[in-house]
């Protein structure tokens, strides 16, 4: 056993309402300047709040000229911040071995709003529809990969307002496993009318610039930003003589399973996260000097956060400094975690603490050692940065000054990861465990369909079909594994998020005015809402994340789950994806983004994946073992296929292709898998973006039922490919040490 490599931060990049560039934003932050002004990007009239931290952005200065119509504000912001982080680390674009982990919530929503709210009147071939190319969250990562690449892998993570903090955790996971030499980790979120109207409808916005931790605080101020850290393993940073700003020494992701918008009043989950991040860093509460709080300035968040800090730090709270950047930078939603991570890293590096802008009368009920007015000269050694989001997923990052010695405990031992449960929703109805393999039988007629999903009516009353499918799929996958929900997490893929429901919300605002925006609808529009709702419904308190990667969203969810399990951050996860039919996706988005418009179906697939000792400890049964899972960009696909183990006898092995219309023949030709029978899964389960997740379920079920011993599951989205190899579980299980 040993420690994984330390994670060095060797570059920072940010663009915010306070400036273009991490340092420009940082200096303005220390001066106490506030970036919250009347909104100019769209008409914010007639609403309680009409201010936000908006950026003066000229997209045409940033975006490749030929693609000006196709890039979103979020994409452009991301490119500016990502370029800066690379340049700051003195890494050339195109440097070998770059990976990208990106978090966000709005994607191309600003550009899509006008098109989506008038969709019936817009012919499909209209130039305006091209604007929707930037709608999927995964587009930003795709564009960064193209401009800054070649890249090794990209992950797009959404956990609402903790999205980019979670993405930094994902980047850290790659480095800790020795899988990446350099990771651009961060996030981006452009302002849009949907979030502005929605937060106004919730009564969550202060009409004035927000006042975190103030007795008079009356809600948050929205903002927009992009921010990235360049993360490297210590050895790589040292080898090239890179400047090290500090270390990312610990991180933790977990869910409250409490309520879609209300933070858990006790602060119990937030406290669990603070403890867990410190535990991974090998630090005690007494060693922490500074906490960069989520500090949104809503009554509930700030009170919850204080309770969590009080639980973890007790009397130490009189000593350590706490501040929130949101009174100056605004709440930049999916970008906030990364933006505040950049500021926290600079605080350690520059020995200065940023103030809490807008705080004039500290709430006596939340006694904290605030930084007021301007930056404070203070040399902090260990700092925490907290982020919490709708649906209840939080993330805490622990940063340390560059001069500090490594105190992290030894890593959890590497262990085989195994699949113990599966559930498919599709043409065969709801199939569980080894029954998922029925999708592979040529003589089986599957026409049951999913029909109405039965959930507890009172607790699921706000759920749309996506939330229902994720809740049911995860519930049945867990049941097939005989595993309860305690401490289990959920990684759910979604190619486009909840488009139909967003369109309804936008149309209502367009026709009735913002005053009649549906407050109870809005929290369900964030791409992570289905997974958040399912976690609350099922009581899942482990990491709960949504990932987005077009046709390979399920494969990416599987990969993110494996990363978290490998590191021992959690012992059991549900992973998969759900794509119930959505008329806007069927008619517009899928044809535009994937080029396929005919015969669209619907489906979902969810697997339970565990560390082997966890399965043994509870006496569970294994369906299949995960032999490897990888993503390749830029023509690395052939290498990926060739790298795996040789298949078992051809009749005892199977290649499963999850992506509709993807002919894997050319890719497999000349490899050891060329003669293995191939199963085109989408021909059985329908053409949709969850067919890849269903392919993984079917492969596990075929192995678990003894029909085959070895499976190669392949999926593809434009420019990248995913390969998963599954094998039969060890017959003679190793006993626990």
């Amino acid at each position: 056993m040993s420690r994984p490599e330390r994670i060095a931060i060797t570059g920072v990049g940010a663009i915010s309402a306070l400036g273009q560039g991490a340092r420009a934003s940082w200096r303005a932050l220390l001066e106490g300047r506030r970036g919250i002004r009347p909104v100019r990007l769209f008409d914010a009239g007639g609403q309680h709040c009409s201010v936000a931290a908006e950026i003066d952005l000229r997209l045409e200065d940033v975006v490749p000229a030929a693609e000006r119509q196709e890039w979103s504000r979020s994409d452009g912001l991301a490119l500016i911040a990502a370029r800066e982080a690379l340049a700051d680390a003195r890494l050339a674009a195109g440097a070998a071995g770059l990976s990208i982990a990106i978090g966000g919530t709005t994607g191309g929503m600003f550009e899509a709003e006008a098109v989506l709210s008038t969709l019936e009147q817009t012919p499909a071939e209209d130039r305006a529809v091209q604007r929707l190319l930037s709608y999927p969250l995964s587009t930003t990562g795709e564009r960064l990969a193209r401009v800054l690449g070649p890249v090794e892998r990209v992950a797009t993570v959404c956990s609402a307002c903790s999205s980019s903090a979670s993405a930094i955790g994902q980047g850290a996971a790659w480095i800790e496993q020795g899988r990446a030499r350099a990771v651009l980790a961060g996030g981006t979120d452009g302002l849009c009318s949907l979030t502005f109207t929605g937060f106004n409808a919730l009564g969550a916005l202060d009409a004035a610039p927000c006042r975190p931790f103030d007795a008079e605080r009356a809600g948050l101020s929205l903002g927009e930003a992009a921010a990235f850290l360049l993360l490297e393993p210590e050895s790589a940073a040292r080898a090239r003589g890179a400047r090290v700003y500090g270390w990312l020494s610990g991180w933790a992701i977990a869910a409250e399973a409490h309520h879609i918008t209300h933070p858990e009043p006790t602060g119990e989950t937030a406290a669990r996260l603070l403890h867990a991040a410190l535990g991974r860093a090998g630090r005690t509460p007494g060693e922490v000097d500074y906490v960069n709080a989520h500090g949104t300035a809503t009554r509930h968040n700030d009170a919850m956060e204080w309770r969590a800090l009080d639980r973890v730090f007790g009397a130490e709270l009189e000593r350590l400094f706490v501040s929130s950047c949101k009174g100056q930078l605004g709440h930049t939603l999916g970008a906030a975690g990364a933006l505040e991570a950049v500021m926290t890293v600079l605080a350690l590096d520059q020995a200065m603490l940023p103030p809490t802008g807008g705080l004039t009368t500290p709430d006596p009920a939340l006694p904290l050692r605030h930084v007021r007015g301007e930056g404070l000269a203070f040399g902090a050694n260990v700092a925490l940065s907290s982020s919490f989001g709708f649906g209840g997923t939080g993330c805490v990052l622990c940063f340390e000054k560059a001069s500090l010695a490594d105190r992290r405990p030894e890593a959890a031992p590497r262990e085989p990861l195994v699949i113990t449960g599966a559930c498919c929703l599709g043409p065969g109805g709801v199939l569980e465990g080894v029954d998922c393999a029925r999708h592979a039988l040529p003589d089986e007629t599957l026409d049951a369909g999913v029909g109405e999903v039965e959930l507890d009516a009172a607790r699921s009353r706000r759920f749309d079909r996506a939330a229902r499918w994720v809740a049911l799929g995860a519930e049945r996958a867990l049941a097939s594994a005989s595993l309860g929900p305690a401490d289990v997490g959920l990684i759910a893929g979604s190619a486009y998020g909840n488009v139909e429901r967003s369109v309804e919300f936008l149309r209502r605002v367009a026709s009735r005015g913002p005053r009649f925006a549906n407050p109870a609808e809005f929290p369900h529009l964030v791409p992570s809402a289905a997974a958040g709702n399912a976690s609350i419904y099922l009581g899942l308190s482990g990491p709960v994340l949504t990932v987005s990667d077009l046709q390979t969203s399920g494969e990416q969810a599987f990969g993110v789950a494996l990363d978290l399990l490998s590191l021992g951050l959690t012992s059991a996860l549900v992973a998969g994806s759900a794509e119930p039919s959505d008329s806007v996706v069927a008619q517009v988005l899928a044809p535009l983004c994937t080029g396929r418009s005919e015969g669209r179906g619907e489906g979902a697939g969810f697997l339970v994946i565990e560390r082997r000792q966890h399965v043994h400890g509870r006496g569970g049964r294994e369906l299949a073992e995960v032999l490897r899972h990888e993503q390749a960009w830029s023509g690395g696909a052939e290498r990926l296929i060739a790298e795996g183990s040789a298949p078992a006898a051809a009749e005892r092995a199977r290649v499963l292709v999850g992506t509709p219309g993807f002919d894997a023949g050319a890719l497999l030709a000349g490899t050891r898998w060329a003669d293995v029978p191939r199963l085109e899964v989408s021909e059985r389960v329908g053409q949709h973006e969850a067919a890849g997740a269903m392919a993984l379920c079917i492969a596990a079920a075929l192995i678990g039922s003894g029909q085959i011993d070895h499976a190669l599951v392949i999926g593809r989205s434009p420019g990248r490919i995913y390969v998963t190899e599954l094998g039969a579980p060890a017959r003679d299980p190793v006993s626990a040490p």
Partner: protein
Amino acid sequence: MELAALKQDIKRLLIEELDLKHLSAEDIADDAPLFGDGLGLDSLDALQLAMALEERFGVAIPAGDEARAIFASVASIAAHLEAARQA
């Protein structure tokens, strides 16, 4: 509008707007508490209800403690709408 019909209308609006499709108007007593232990509604429902009542009846619901009193039950909502109409 007669008070009984108004209450019926409010119940239908509650079911429709708050996604209480598992209930019917008969399941909601005029004086039953709507929030907390009653129907199990929360503050998100209160916002939605305020918006929907204003849209349907053209009567604004004040924020804060006043709203809490109005939203106590179907009967108290009906009383507020009646009072606003006569004002």
